[in-house]
């Protein structure tokens, strides 16, 4: 399990013990992962000190697109997929315990970092309900919020209901804090509609906006945080201090929330390991590389993953929170045209 702890030593000890437990479980319960570990001659007995965590075999995301990797009864799990629009998607099998762990992290972080409670906020989710989201992980899991807090979803049948969203925002009672939630691309659609209608709002100062998901515009061009923030100010009257991004991907069972310094914090029980592009050895803190992680919060699949992202980690933050801080840089580019050479078909390699 993951949780926020305040003492550096405590974080280290807890992270080691939780990941050790988790590794032993997945080694025992997931056959393909066990074989992979055996190939690397890494067994639970090898986990003696914290540094040994860096040697735990990690699974590249491509494997989740090719194989069923599961440590539980697959039929009792929810199959969660990435929202990838090109090629195959990752399939992650989550049991109830794993989903619950994810949601508990959200609830704990929302309370601790933003003072949000079940009673004091109203969530305006630009995505669909869990029922409508199908298997797409982020949409599915945010759709679950309605079971925890007062939530309204604004995506129905794939249609974003901007008009209703704006009407609801205008009519929202002042005794609850507004929480706006959605992928950057969905917010861009809202702004486009607002622009066309010549509308802008001035939302209360205690409003909080969360974005989660890919940073690409409709045209495929990358969006920047600064550009989006400017639009929040223009259309919602919201400043940078009220806007937070959340990092998550389908293979990870723990979201990273931004603190008031806009740093993404990693709870204890989760270890981000940044690796050198060539050697895949761990790099020192602060240096950029391939992001990989060891997440102890999953019981139904080994969440020991090499991601498709470039980033770095540091320790501690001016906000006072201890532990690892994650800095996202960009996605890894593995699709590149090289002159007249046609790359061998994926199915052949």
């Amino acid at each position, binding site marked *: 399990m993951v949780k926020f702890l305040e003492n550096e030593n405590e974080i280290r000890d807890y992270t080691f013990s939780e990941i050790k437990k988790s590794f032993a479980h997945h080694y025992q319960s997931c056959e*393909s992962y066990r*074989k*992979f570990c055996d*190939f*690397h001659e890494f067994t639970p007995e090898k986990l003696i000190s914290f540094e040994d965590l860096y040697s735990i075999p*990690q*699974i*590249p995301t*491509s*494997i989740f*697109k*090719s*194989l069923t990797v599961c440590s539980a009864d697959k039929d009792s799990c929810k199959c969660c997929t990435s929202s990838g629009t090109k*090629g*195959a998607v990752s399939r992650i099998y989550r049991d109830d315990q794993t989903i619950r762990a994810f949601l508990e992290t959200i609830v704990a972080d929302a309370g601790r970092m933003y003072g949000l409670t079940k009673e004091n906020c109203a969530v305006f989710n630009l995505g669909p309900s869990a029922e409508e989201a199908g298997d797409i992980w982020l949409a599915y899991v945010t759709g679950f919020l309605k079971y925890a807090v007062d939530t309204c979803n604004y995506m129905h049948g794939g249609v974003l209901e901007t008009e209703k969203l704006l009407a609801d925002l205008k009519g929202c009672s002042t005794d609850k804090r507004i929480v706006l939630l959605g992928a950057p691309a969905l917010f861009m659609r809202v702004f486009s509609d607002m622009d066309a209608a010549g509308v802008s709002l001035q939302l209360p100062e205690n409003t909080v906006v969360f974005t989660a998901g890919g940073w690409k515009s409709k045209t495929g061009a990358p969006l920047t945080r600064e550009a989006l923030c400017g639009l929040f100010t223009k259309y919602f009257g919201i400043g940078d201090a009220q806007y937070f991004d959340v990092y998550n991907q389908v293979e990870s069972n723990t979201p990273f929330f931004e603190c008031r310094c806009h740093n993404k914090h990693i709870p204890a029980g989760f270890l981000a390991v940044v690796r050198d*592009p*060539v*050697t*895949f050895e761990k790099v020192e803190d602060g240096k950029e590389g*391939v992001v990989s992680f060891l997440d102890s919060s999953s019981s139904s699949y080994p969440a020991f993953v*090499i991601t498709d992202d*470039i980033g770095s980690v540091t320790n501690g933050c001016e906000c006072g929170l201890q532990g690892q801080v994650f800095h996202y840089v960009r996605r*890894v*580019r*593995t*699709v*590149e*045209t*090289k*002159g*007249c*050479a*046609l*790359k*061998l078909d*994926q*199915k*052949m*390699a």
Partner: protein
Amino acid sequence: MEKEVLNLPLIIGGKEVEGEHHIRLEYDDLVISFPVLDDEKRKAVLAMDQDSIHNLKLTEIVSFLQRVSWLWYDENYPLRKKMMEYGPRISGQSAEMYKHNIAVLLQLISFKTFMEDIVDWELGDRRLLDEWISRENGEIHAEPLGRLLHIISGNVPLVGFYSLVRGLITKNVNIIKLSQKDFLSTYLFVRSFADVDPDHPVTKAISALYWGKDDIENIDFFSNAANGMIVWGGFDTIRAYKSRCPVGCEFIEYGPKKSLQIIDYDNNDVDQLELNIARDVSVFDQEACLSPQLVLVKGTDIKRFMIRLMKGMISYTKLWPGAKHTDDHYIHMNYLIESHEYLGNIAWADDDRNWLVVKLDDPTPVNLDHPLGRTIFVKEIQDFDEALEYIDGHVQTVGIAPESLKLKLRDELTKRGVSRIANIGNVDMPREGLVHEGITLNRLVRLVGMEKESSYHAKSYDYPDDYFDQFIYWLKWVKKGEDHGKILRK
């Protein structure tokens, strides 16, 4: 650290042309500053003299190219030194690989007879370019298309050399669109022509330019001005220019293609087979369409094959050090290694990821593209029919060993789209008589003809006596009262 800036002039009709505004091409530790094309410069490019090169004899053109080669033989020739110094900093390829590209260029242009032989193989008769040759009841001649637009890809320096030489020996004028990825190779080659003779019609038949892939104005302008387009590149590049190719303009596409090799290991009689495979994988750092990406091998001692192949990869890395790639490339290779190891396949690579050999025992796709950069997949096959499953119209070159297997498989391979069946170990240079991608010089000329007078009959056919009674060909003025028509051929 401030980057070094390389200010380069445009080359228009062989002359260096400066400009007021510049485009900046950024590299790791270098910037190329190159004049932006404006209306005046574009007009000057189109004004290149087509008559002067047209009026040269082929032998004069190949003599000129031979003199260019003499410059490039000299390791101290300033432009060669510049290519060796800056080329690797621009493309990431090693200096040794540039040296190899120059070596292949010199093979191409050092021998006048070799270039003339190429014309013979591909056009049938070199005299066609200079003369009107009698053929049956006429005389034929090869006219250049006129103005060629070459879109050069940056994966292999040789691409630009090869494309330009073929444009020149067919007496065309040539507009070269340089590649950002390997800007200097073709550019310096073109510049060296002026060192032989700045006023030679060959020198004046070339312009070396640059525009970006989103520069629709220049793409449209030069596409519309071309009589022939020779485009090297991937799907997007080919599509971008093909869609703009004017009616009546010849469109020649090189790529995107892939290549592989098929080995009957038990019957192999060449001791250094694995070393030769490693050579084919390593040359051009595997970025060419003719570079093998997969080896299909049938045999009883595959372990021996794998070990010797790896030794070969190590040896060729010493001869031709690996290119300097982006971080993404190495990450891609590592993803592949980890993914295949998860599947139970075995992957071998050196510490610096200069090469990677993966033995595919579990065929489950790992949803990753081939990263190139000397990555070779080895798949064991049980029979050679299985190899045919890997062949389609996208496969260009298939290296085969031993010789007997070439004969056995060639029809099935070429029927499926393969254009070249190669010996293992010299994939970078098709043997004399073959032509890259099967695209001959015929495509760069128009075969024109003039009939000899009607009474001339080097060739005639025996028609049945009453044939022209039944099928009237011509009418003839006749005197009043006579029947019309029924004019026979003789």
